[in-house]
């Protein structure tokens, strides 16, 4: 049964760009998406080998045609250990769509960040 959890102050998350919080037995990362300032929450455990995914870099993913580089819209989360990249909304691993990290709804109430987990 999912329920809302008060996990961090909004000020803290905005100041650091992210917060790693614990809800029950799980670590969850709350991240500020630099593309629009929205908050995203994902489990801090890469489904590849369990690395602390939410310590990774939020970055713009490359695309292109052979020999020509371009950039995609929006930001993705790159795992700090092996570099696999994840969609912030769906949690799907963009480099191995068979893999997915849990994502959580986020809301802000009275300066506090809540996640539905």
């Amino acid at each position, binding site marked *: 049964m999912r329920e809302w959890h008060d996990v961090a102050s909004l000020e803290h998350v905005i100041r650091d760009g992210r917060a790693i919080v614990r809800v029950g037995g799980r670590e969850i990362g709350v991240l500020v998406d630099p593309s629009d300032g929205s908050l995203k929450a994902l489990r801090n455990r890469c489904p590849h080998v369990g690395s602390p995914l939410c310590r990774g870099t939020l970055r713009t993913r*490359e*695309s*292109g045609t*052979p*020999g020509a*580089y371009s950039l995609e819209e929006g930001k993705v989360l790159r795992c700090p250990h092996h*570099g*696999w*990249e994840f969609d912030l909304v769906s949690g799907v691993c963009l*480099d191995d769509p068979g893999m997915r990290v849990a994502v959580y709804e986020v809301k802000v109430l009275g300066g506090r960040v809540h996640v539905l987990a």
Partner: protein
Amino acid sequence: MIDCDIHHVIADQADFLSYMDPAQREWFQTRGDLGLPGYPWSHPFGFANDEGLLEPGYAPGALERISREALDAYGADVGILHANDASTVSLMASPYRAAAFARAHNDWVREQWLDGEPRLRGSILCPAQDPLAAAREIQRAAATDDRFVEVLLCAGSERPYGEPRYLPIFEAAAECGLQVAIHTSGEGMGIAAPGGGAGAHTFYIEWHTVGSATSVMSHLVSLICNGIFERLPTLKVMLLEGGVAWLPGLLWRLDTNWRGLRAEVPWLERRPSEIMRDHVRFSTQPLEHTDGHDSLLFEMLEAAGAPDILCFASDYPHWDWDDPKFVINRLPKAWRAKVMHENAAAFYGDKLGLVTA
């Protein structure tokens, strides 16, 4: 049955040189080995299987012997003819001499080999060290005869063939409806990079174990990473004589690296192994001996896409050739028709000119 790798040799240099540009003929006449580069090591008892094959009296790989020993003996429908030493033309220091050699060789193949044996199909040599000249020669030779079914590149090279400098070669092949064969040979010869990746080998046994395989691996990975198959969706490549037992491991490494390092090659939208399955085929010869672990080998190869990715090749008349009967018996029953015939027929398509029942 289709044999994807039969070698012929230049037994009569004077005959061959009659096809040469007269203004360059003397230069070639006065070189040993027709100006082709040589290996720094040599096979201890001879590259060609002169002693083991049926009838003495002909130069190894001479047309009559190929007809009898490689085609008649095993009921082959078609054999793809590949140059022997001459495949290293692309490693000659002079691209101008190489262009003249390739041109003469293609004309000689057409008249002396394809005209003499209807079951043979030809491969086009080109001066790959000068890719624009190579593209011109591919277009010229392809226009002379429909029995040329592919471009032959030796796996010894200055850089791996996915490098954009080589693109004109692949574009010309694709335009002419030809596939490209990359055949182990020439690593460390002439202007080629040393084989193996750790400096020059000491022995032939080292080259035959390492250098002849790692060049093929490098070309495979380079072609995929540089997006050649995204650029040329109809292009197919056959990798010959580099072995296959290493393939599953290489693909697992490549797919894993692609997941983490994709930013370097963001034009690859599919796993490299999937691109390989759609565009690349491998000759069976030399099918690794497994010391009793054949079932393990075939299970591994299945993970890499076998049997669809394998095409039979004998490598006649070389010392390490694979007897078709031996290969058939080793292959799983369900693989035999595909590997011995169907995969190659699909790879070459209508170019093969096979009459289908």
